[in-house]
């Protein structure tokens, strides 16, 4: 490369300065410039104001207002500068085909097919071994990535922590006794010891509804499940596992706020409305000699939404 002093200024195709393509797009450039100047000044004030607001730790909305206002004005000014004061054009650029000639393409294809083909044909054994090795690797490499991520489901989806004789406790761990709920009211309960655990919250959570003062039968075969009107259902919706958190007292419906599945508490939580496919599993209760509520046994089926292994 030549030293700079010896370089001649190049003469290329050009436009004379008074060419209409180079005139500003605005019909009144001075007016446009004044407006843009005001806009940019407002923008400057805005971003400076942002600095000031930040400095004095002003309310968050002032930070947003000054930053947003400042940037918006700066942006409008800049875009307007480009739109109104810069050459109006239009300018044209040729669009050339990106494709190469047929010879070039054939050369590439030939290189791949012929060179590669002869390579593989001559060395079938090691080619196959290398391919096999990489293939096996690509499969086994997934194993640690996937398998280390978590345990296998095994039986965990099928069982809860409700056991034979589990004490029913509330959120704070206090045992629930027979006089705790008025007829028509509802509470969320857990098996004793699980109320503070993630699993207790997400899997064992159970809704206890008191429907009457006498033993209540929701379905045939469940005559002893609801002593003194205490009916217990899994709180985990059978649709997508949201907690069935709403109780419509007059209609005696448990409602899931996520997708509006409704379960009738009087007939075994059969879904009355919404996308839930199954009743909420019912937990058989009994009242022990001291008046505490306890579970006769665990749930007789997996709680929550459906999955492949569930029968």
């Amino acid at each position, binding site marked *: *490369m030549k030293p*700079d*002093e010896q*370089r001649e*200024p*190049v003469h290329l*195709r050009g*436009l004379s*300065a008074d*060419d*209409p*393509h180079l005139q500003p797009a605005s019909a009144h450039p001075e007016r446009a410039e004044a407006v843009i100047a005001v806009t940019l000044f407002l923008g400057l004030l805005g971003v400076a104001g942002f600095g000031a607001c*930040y400095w004095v730790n002003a309310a*968050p909305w002032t*930070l*947003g207002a000054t*930053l*947003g206002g*400042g*940037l*918006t004005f*700066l*942006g*409008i000014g*800049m*875009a307007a500068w*480009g739109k109104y004061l*810069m*050459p*109006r*054009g*239009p300018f*044209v*650029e040729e*669009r050339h085909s*990106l494709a190469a000639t047929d010879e070039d393409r054939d050369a590439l294809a030939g290189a791949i097919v012929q060179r590669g083909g002869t390579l593989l044909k001559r060395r079938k054994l090691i080619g196959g071994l290398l391919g096999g090795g990489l293939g096996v690797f690509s499969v086994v490499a997934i194993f640690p990535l996937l*398998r280390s991520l*978590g345990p296998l*489901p095994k039986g*965990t989806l099928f069982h809860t922590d409700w056991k034979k004789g589990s004490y029913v406790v509330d959120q704070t761990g206090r045992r629930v006794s027979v006089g705790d709920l008025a007829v028509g009211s509802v509470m969320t309960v*857990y098996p004793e010891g699980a109320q503070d655990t*993630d699993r207790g*919250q*997400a*899997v064992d959570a159970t809704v206890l509804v008191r429907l009457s003062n006498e033993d209540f039968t929701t379905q045939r075969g469940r005559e002893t499940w609801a002593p003194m009107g205490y009916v217990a259902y899994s709180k985990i919706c059978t649709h*997508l*596992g949201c*907690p069935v958190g709403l109780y419509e007292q007059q209609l005696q419906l448990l409602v899931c*706020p*996520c997708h509006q599945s409704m379960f009738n508490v009087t007939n075994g939580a059969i879904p009355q*409305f919404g*996308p*839930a496919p*199954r009743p909420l599993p019912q937990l058989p209760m009994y009242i022990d000699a001291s008046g505490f509520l306890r579970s006769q046994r665990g749930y007789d089926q997996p709680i929550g*939404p*459906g*999955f*492949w*292994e*569930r029968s």
Partner: protein
Amino acid sequence: MSDVAVTKRSQRRALGPYGRVGKTINELDERLGIAKGGRSFLDKVYPDHWSFLLGEIALYSFIVILATGVFLTFYYTPSQALVTYHGSYLPLDGQKMTEAYFSSVNLSFAVRGGLLMRQMHHWACDIFVGAIVVHMARVFFTGAFRKPRELNWTIGLTLLILAIVNGFLGYSLPDDLVSGTGIRIAYSIIESIPLVGSYLAFWIFGGNYPGNGVFQRFYVAHVLLVPLIMIGLVSAHMFLMFRQKHTQFDGGGRTEDNVVGKPFFPVFMAKTTGYLLIITGVIALLSAFAQVNPIWQFGPYEAARISYAVQPDWYMGFLDGALRIWPSWTFHSFGHTIPFEVFIPAVLLPGVIFNLAFAWPALERRFTHDDEFHNLLDRPSNRPKRTAAGAALLAFLFMLFVASSTDVLANFFHVSLNTVLIAMRVLVVATPFIAYLVTYKICKELQAVHNAGRRKTANIVSRTPAGEYVATPSPLYPDDRHDKLEPTPVPDFISTGSPEVTESGVRTVER
């Protein structure tokens, strides 16, 4: 010591005709060879049309997301460890919560500018996904996805999916009551996949719900894994657009073989940088005045609790709506359960929709037998079937979106939930057909009207002193100033013809 006096003028001469800029370019070009490419980069012509700005909204809100997101990572802790809150937001005082929720509340209230950054991050994301959808609609309806741009359509669609996934991941991170429920639903959706569902769910979440260390995983995916892929794809998207050049609408000297517009430097650069500032500014203004995702009001997540009448971010709405209105059909036999009530609306349906979108360019080529290159865009009304199909799909998705607020609609209109449910089922099925027919008809009508869509000049009617009304004759269509000039190539230099100029393009001022 040289006996040549070092003057300002001699220094300037030594720098060559273009001064320091020229010197820098010499140095860079010697090493990297940037001169030729750099020149054609500056000269690259960008066509003008408002609809081409939609993709820029997506790009620039993505930049805002990245910038604000980096800020948030400094203060967020992805941990499920329990802490007790004693911060500046008194309603939560003394509550037990995870560190994830604690740090999210804290970065909103205790970190200066934190709330603004969090709101900007959330708003920018909502706008990002929206801009992608609208941009895709533009590309679809104008046929910009046709040969040679099918690959870029695929990349863009992948970006949309990644944006939705990452939006959901980010929405989950604060561990508030609303997002926690969202994670629970996501778990159940994964669980619903036949054969592998429970294994997948266990591996993604590290166990039975609520899993083990899920925030750690979501966090790494949200701030590293997915953004990295997205940045790569955005770069590829831009590179392909740059290499294949912009599409443009017909007219004003525009042909299949040229691009007519403004050069990158300085016109497009000024406009697009201004646009970046405007978009950032508008996001900041929205964040200042419109509250989004107030996690401190929702409270910390507890698996056994739930909030009422909450919707996910808008881009998840169609899935939620589908889950709400799909009937409770399930399958259990042979000792197995396939939760069709979840699997069909939440897995199969989005799968079918996105695969249809991926396949569309190939499908259209197959049906139209059109294997030509297309650099000129279609007017949507000239492609009535495609336009009607797009309108039908958008109508379908929109109705699913509306269906995600059945409970709110029932409350608002004082009708039963059952009525709303049945109405939504009917609307979701019927609206696409109606949209197809109506759009098709409108397109056909527009085709029949000459110059439909062109702006006409106003009729100027004036009253004479005598009280007579006279219409000033004017052309039917205003002459666009730009149309009067023939497009010219971007000039290599501009000759001012001024006597001061001694060398072309360089003005030497003696001091």
